[in-house]
């Protein structure tokens, strides 16, 4: 970026006057390796010790598959719900002025700041059949707490800020003149939103969706209190890891862990691809 003139000699880093590269880079890489990379590679190493057949038998165990499906499915569903409502929230926060807007804006970050266990017991109490919302839903014959729907409710709570906080800054940057131009050319308001604004917001929406989903697949604390945790019905994959560990079945825990880690890497790759595509196409990431 800064170096347009490159010497023919291969440099690991571009020369400059600022000191401290060795110290800061060295410390950062050592700490990163010790705390994150070595422990994570230990997980992969353990699973490779199992051998492929044993690993596959553990990973394709029906209870494991069911748990992964439940985690994945609820994460997708929650991210979809959050995309719709997150967009509305971001829109209202950016476009409308109303008293208390700053407070509402700050509250959106609550799921980032509130411990997941607290969110879990609060949501479980709210949506339980005798809870404030649960009792009301029960009148209509809906049961949320202690069913798979409860998982989705918890993941909606956890994922909301991801969509709002990725869409909001992009929406703030939108040039209002584009909308005016579209309006002078006779486009209706709905057309403008649908065909002028939404395409520009798409990369942010997709990024937020993928981030909310990645978080949802791995989420544990807020879900276990509300889910009911019945194997094959409402047992999420992270909980299955905990159960296997409590049984001292480290091999099975490792297998589920590796599958989940692979999904995380895949999601990380997808998020990076979306952002690269967005930078290329829209000039912002």
């Amino acid at each position, binding site marked *: 970026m800064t170096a347009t003139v490159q010497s023919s000699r291969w440099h690991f880093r571009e020369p400059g*006057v600022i000191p401290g590269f060795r110290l800061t880079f060295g410390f950062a890489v050592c700490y990163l390796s010790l705390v994150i990379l070595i422990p994570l590679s230990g997980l992969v190493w353990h699973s490779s010790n199992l051998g492929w057949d044993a690993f596959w038998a553990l990973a394709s165990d029906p209870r494991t598959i069911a748990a992964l499906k439940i985690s994945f499915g609820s994460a997708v569903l929650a991210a979809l719900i959050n995309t719709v409502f997150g967009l509305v929230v971001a829109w209202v926060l950016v476009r409308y002025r109303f008293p208390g807007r700053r407070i509402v804006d700050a509250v959106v970050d609550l799921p980032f700041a509130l*411990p997941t266990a607290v969110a879990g017991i609060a949501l479980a109490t709210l949506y339980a059949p005798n809870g404030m919302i649960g009792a009301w839903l029960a009148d209509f014959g809906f049961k949320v707490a202690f069913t798979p729907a409860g998982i989705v409710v918890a993941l909606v709570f956890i994922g909301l800020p991801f969509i709002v906080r990725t869409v909001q800054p992009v929406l703030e940057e939108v040039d209002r003149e584009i909308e005016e131009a579209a309006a002078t050319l006779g486009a209706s308001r709905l057309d403008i939103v649908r065909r002028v604004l939404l395409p520009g917001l798409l990369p942010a929406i997709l990024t937020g969706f993928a981030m909310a989903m990645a978080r949802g697949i791995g989420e544990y604390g807020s879900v276990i209190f509300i889910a009911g945790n019945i194997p094959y019905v409402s047992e999420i994959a992270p909980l299955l890891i*905990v159960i296997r560990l409590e049984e001292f079945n480290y091999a099975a825990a490792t297998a589920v862990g590796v599958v989940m*880690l692979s999904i995380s890497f895949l999601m990380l790759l997808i998020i990076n691809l979306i952002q690269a595509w967005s930078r290329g196409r829209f000039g912002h990431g």
Partner: protein
Amino acid sequence: MADQTISIQSATAETPLVRLVLMAIAFLFLALFLFLPLVVVVSEAFRNGVGAWFQAILDPDALASIRLTLLVAAISVPLNMVFGVAAAWAIAKFEFRGKAFLITLIDLPFSVSPVISGLVYVLLFGSGSVLGPWLKGWGIEILFAVPGITLATIFVTFPFVARELIPLMQDQGSADEEAALSLGASGWQTFLHVTLPNIRWGLLYGVLLCNARAMGEFGAVSVVSGHIRGLTDTMPLHIEILYNEYNFAAAFAVASLLVGLALVTLVLKTAIERRYAD
């Protein structure tokens, strides 16, 4: 006049009715998912009165969990802060190969399930590992003890400070530092008197979020803690135990402290963002 207003609005803004509906949807959704859970925690915590709340908080096991939570945060947050500053300095002030890859690696803990963050340490220090029994021979307990809980917390809160500082320091560039250095300041002087004042709000912001997560972490800590009451239970774990014992009032009383932490975090965060904007 009214007709005129409406015809002007309809071109680049929604009609008042659409606007009202959108705002109603947004508020209802936020109230349902964000506001009501807070109300429930506080109302359940004080359901049996202030006396019962104090009794639940002053219970020896609850106090022990509060102490442990504070201790773990007091170790893990400063470590991650030092890492965050060092990583941001290396990444923002220098051009080197593999920088994008390094940034991706730093973000990695955000996309890993908290349970896996705990699992990796169980595998590394558990009874079936090489390291665990060896350290035990020296009398050092990692798993089901404070060091394991701290390590898991460090893993989970690893990116917060670095993530806040990297874009900030990249935006600020190196011109200020180069000026200080050319005037004869040493590297440390430059950092302390030039860089640190420039990044202080971003640093505080990152530390705040890091701390909130460190004190509230549940999944990762739950896997490595062993749930020994009064010894290895952090506040979130203590809440789980109380809740599973159907001691809801006490569970929500401890939870209300963490709600307080979350609210203080949000207020300070908003205040810092305002300062940023000025």
